[in-house]
């Protein structure tokens, strides 16, 4: 291998404690090297120090942070380098793309000017020359001036387009190394795929080195040559992507695959940071330092066990459950033929905010007692609006919602029968209220009785009884979502509507909350309506799936059938866009991207199929005739002109994972 472009060795970062306590150690002896043109994935759950490592590399650590060790870029020591020199290198030598496309751009400057700024800074270009170059860079990331004017402001763009602008800003000065910090986490799954393709294409074309930071092993596995796994400020395993993914060595890496860990690493002592959670912990793990062990396939693992000699998985089951979007059903799969009493009936429900565009357009379905229905779609597809109408937080423009045969919008007494769990466990709990009060608020009962019901609800979601006396800030994201679920359970509702219940959570915590939701389904007669953009989530808990595009349900049917063999072109695109553990797929062009580049542009031709503008298979008929939803066998309904043949046999298609 050539001399490394970026070489981080023994990097430690401490953050001084504002309260005057001992400084907190954020990074502890991180070693990481990136060769010219190489792509390295940096993986770990949130708080493990991935972003801190990146910020240290471009010299933008937060105030109060102190770095020791060595960061060399093209041989030049960056730690302690003068600020002037770092300003020259930032953008030109090392550039960075950040996670938050909504806030990472200056809201009051046109995007072209924001891209041009770096060019003017680094090449001393004039205003016009820089603007012309910026236009070319924007075109390169898929924002040609004829479609998206460089004079536009960030608020006029979609999330995916904004992230492309962020990428254009980073690429403007043709950096030798691009650090992309969770560049796709905030994006819809179909747009994630385009973004990753774009980054991989450009880095390959330009011979640019890439550090891709993600909490999602699937994302880095596809895009990177090598993978480094971090835990609690320490790199615990690194090596070729195929080796790490194929045979994860360190217990944490294996746990990450199983995704069954609590997220927040605890304060650590002298030994291995993973020791408190490691299923295979030994006495010396607690005290002895961490030796790098080199394994034959070019991998390095920091673990006392000689795992490299005998790679194995802790459990074949957990491996597939939470990481792969393979439809593995945790709960009992109930056939739709044995449907119970109808709990919820939605009939031609429509909500129009800005005529003529309907956010929800003539949606109909029924939900039986005990059934779990998942509504899948990208943001803006109308799925949250639909949920709001079902819980009577919003009023339908036309159509009907019937819960237990009555209208929840006009009959307030019905509202105890339906409860909602919201996406953001941080924003949805009043920080000034104790958990007991939050959970018990809906109950109009004597104090002792209420306390008993609260304790029971907390126990049901796996929280200790003393949680009732604490405030929300004392809990982690996953625990807060449990509190939100307990609050929904307290009225013993017939229907729980969960709007993106896990998308604000870490992958490892997601798995726990999903397992909880899955377990709660077991209670007789309780139905769930789960809203999600993530097929992997849906696969774990749904009996029935409804796929929504631009306000309409385009495919509906038993979860297993829909996920295993999606029929509608959008369902297929959605399934294909889910990242898989396929090392190097993106770089080697092995991957099939079913969505065209333009998919983040909302094209809704009112006359025909809403999806026609984006559909790779669209024919002339699609553009003027809206497809009706009709049965195609095995309990499935699809709204597409191109799907006409009923699924043969009527058995849920193929082997699980065949198409996902």
């Amino acid at each position: 291998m050539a001399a490394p472009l970026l070489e981080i060795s023994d990097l430690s970062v401490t953050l001084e404690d504002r309260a005057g306590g001992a400084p907190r150690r954020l990074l502890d002896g991180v070693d990481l090297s990136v060769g010219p043109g190489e792509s390295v994935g940096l993986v770990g759950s949130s708080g493990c120090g991935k972003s801190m490592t990146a910020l240290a590399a471009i010299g933008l650590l937060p105030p109060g942070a102190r770095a020791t060790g060595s960061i060399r870029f093209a041989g030049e020591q960056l730690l302690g380098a003068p600020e002037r020199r770092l300003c020259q290198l930032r953008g030109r030598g090392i550039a960075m793309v950040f996670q938050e496309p909504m806030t990472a751009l200056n809201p009051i400057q046109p995007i072209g000017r924001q891209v041009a700024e770096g060019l003017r800074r680094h090449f001393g270009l004039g205003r016009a020359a820089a603007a012309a170059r910026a236009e070319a860079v924007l075109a390169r990331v898929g924002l040609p001036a004829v479609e998206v004017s460089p004079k536009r402001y960030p608020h006029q763009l979609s999330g995916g387009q904004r992230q492309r602008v962020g990428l254009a800003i980073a690429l403007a000065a043709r950096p030798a190394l691009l650090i992309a910090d969770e560049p796709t986490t905030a994006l819809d799954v179909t747009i994630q795929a385009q973004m990753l393709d774009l980054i991989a294409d450009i880095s390959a074309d330009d011979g640019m080195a890439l550090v891709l930071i993600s909490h999602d092993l699937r994302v880095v596995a596809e895009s990177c040559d090598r993978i480094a796994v971090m835990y609690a400020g320490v790199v615990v395993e690194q090596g070729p992507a195929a080796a790490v993914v194929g045979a994860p060595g360190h217990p944490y890496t294996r746990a990450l695959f199983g995704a069954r860990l609590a997220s927040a690493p605890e304060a650590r002592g002298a030994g291995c940071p993973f020791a408190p959670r490691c299923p295979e912990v030994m006495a010396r793990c607690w005290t002895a330092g961490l030796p790098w062990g080199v394994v034959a396939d070019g991998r390095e693992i920091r673990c006392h066990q000689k795992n490299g000699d005998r790679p194995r998985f802790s459990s074949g089951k957990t491996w597939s459950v939470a990481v792969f979007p393979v439809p593995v059903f945790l709960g009992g799969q109930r056939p739709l033929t044995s449907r119970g009493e109808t709990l919820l009936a939605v009939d031609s429900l429509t909500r129009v905010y800005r005529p003529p565009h309907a956010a929800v357009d003539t949606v109909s379905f029924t939900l039986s007692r005990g059934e779990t229905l998942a509504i899948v779609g990208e943001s803006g597809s109308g799925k949250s609006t639909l949920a709001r109408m079902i819980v009577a937080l919003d009023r339908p423009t036309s159509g009907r919602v019937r819960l237990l045969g009555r209208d929840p919008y006009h009959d307030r007494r019905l509202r105890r029968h339906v409860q909602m769990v919201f996406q953001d466990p941080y924003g949805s709990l009043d920080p000034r209220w104790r958990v007991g009060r939050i959970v018990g608020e809906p109950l109009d009962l004597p104090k002792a009785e209420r306390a008993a019901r609260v304790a029971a609800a907390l126990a049901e979601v796996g929280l200790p009884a003393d949680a009732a006396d604490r405030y929300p800030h004392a809990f982690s994201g996953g625990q807060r979502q449990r509190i939100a679920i307990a609050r929904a359970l307290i009225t013993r509702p017939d229907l729980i509507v969960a709007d993106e219940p896990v998308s604000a959570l870490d992958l490892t915590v997601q798995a726990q909350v999903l397992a909880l939701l899955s377990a709660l389904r077991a209670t007789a007669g309780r139905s769930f309506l789960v809203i999600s953009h993530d097929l992997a989530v849906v696969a774990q808990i749904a009996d029935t799936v409804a796929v929504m595009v631009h306000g309409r349900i385009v495919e509906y049917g038993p979860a297993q059938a829909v996920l295993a063999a999606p029929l509608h072109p959008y369902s297929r695109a959605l399934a294909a866009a889910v990242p898989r553990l396929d090392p190097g797929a993106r770089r080697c062009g092995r991957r099939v991207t079913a969505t065209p580049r333009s998919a983040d542009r909302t094209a809704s031709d009112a006359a025909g199929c809403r999806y026609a503008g984006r559909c790779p298979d669209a024919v002339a008929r699609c553009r003027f005739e809206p497809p009706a939803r009709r049965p195609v066998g095995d309990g499935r309904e699809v709204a597409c002109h191109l799907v006409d043949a009923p699924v043969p046999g009527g058995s849920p298609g193929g082997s699980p994972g065949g198409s996902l």
Partner: protein
Amino acid sequence: MPAFLVRRLAGLIATLLGATVVVFVVLEILPGDPALVMLGVTADDATLAALRTEMGLDRPAVVRYLDWVAGLVTGDLGTSQTYGVPVAGLVGERIAVSLPLALIALTLAAALGIPLGVVAAANHGRPADAAVIGAAQIGVAMPNFWLAILLILLFAVELRWVPAGGFAGWEAGAGEALRSLALPAVALALPQAAILARVTRAAVLDQFGHDHIRTARAKGLSRTAALIGHAVPNALIPVVTILGLQFSFLIAGTIIIENVFYLPGLGRLVVQAIAQRDLIVLKTLVVLLAGAVVVVSFLVDLAYAGLDPRVRLAAAAPGGAA
């Protein structure tokens, strides 16, 4: 943009009309005979009746209101009861003092407060920051009339640079007139500058925490370049809000300051009109002051549109920018 302007202008006119209605109702319709108020309880019935006829109080309220509003529009504001001169001329003379005073004070406050706030934010936690915060604390705490007295003692009594009070008049030349206005303007401006410095500092520091500043730094901009190019323009949005609110305080401030400096401005006219129960002058003045506040908030709206494309474009295409 024109649609946006038309909408805001319509709002402006509606607010002004609302102000005239409130003033009219409060001063003329509410219990209490305006003629009795003006003449005092000792006035005899014949004088009262004569004044009522002169003021047109025997006509219906709607007619009187329309008459008055028409007068406001055409500039025929009636004759002052105490001065015996047309109200329009009287008010015009006083505006020539008060408007320059308020504008100079506002400019001074902005020119002093905003840069100090930026400097404090750029040197967050360092001595320059502490100095600005300390000075601003004193400035906010100090009443402007007391500051005015201190300024008179130093610059007029001790140093004799400027007159202690009175107004030379614009006929005496702009230099002389401005010399008369210098101390009152500074006395008005300093407390407002202190508030602006604090608001600006907080707004810039808030911007520093935003992700787009990190993006700017990652492009290779120095800290100062990111501050000037990205943090300050964004921070000006809340600052302009405060600036607009301050204009109302400045108007209230002129009432006190003009009395301390013995300036023949609107503020003193208000006090005199109240003391002498000159209702005709008073209602014109109240509408004028309300109008000034409304016009300033209109200007603030325009400034928002200039500073923030989200406001400008949302206003230009309602519902278009999602």
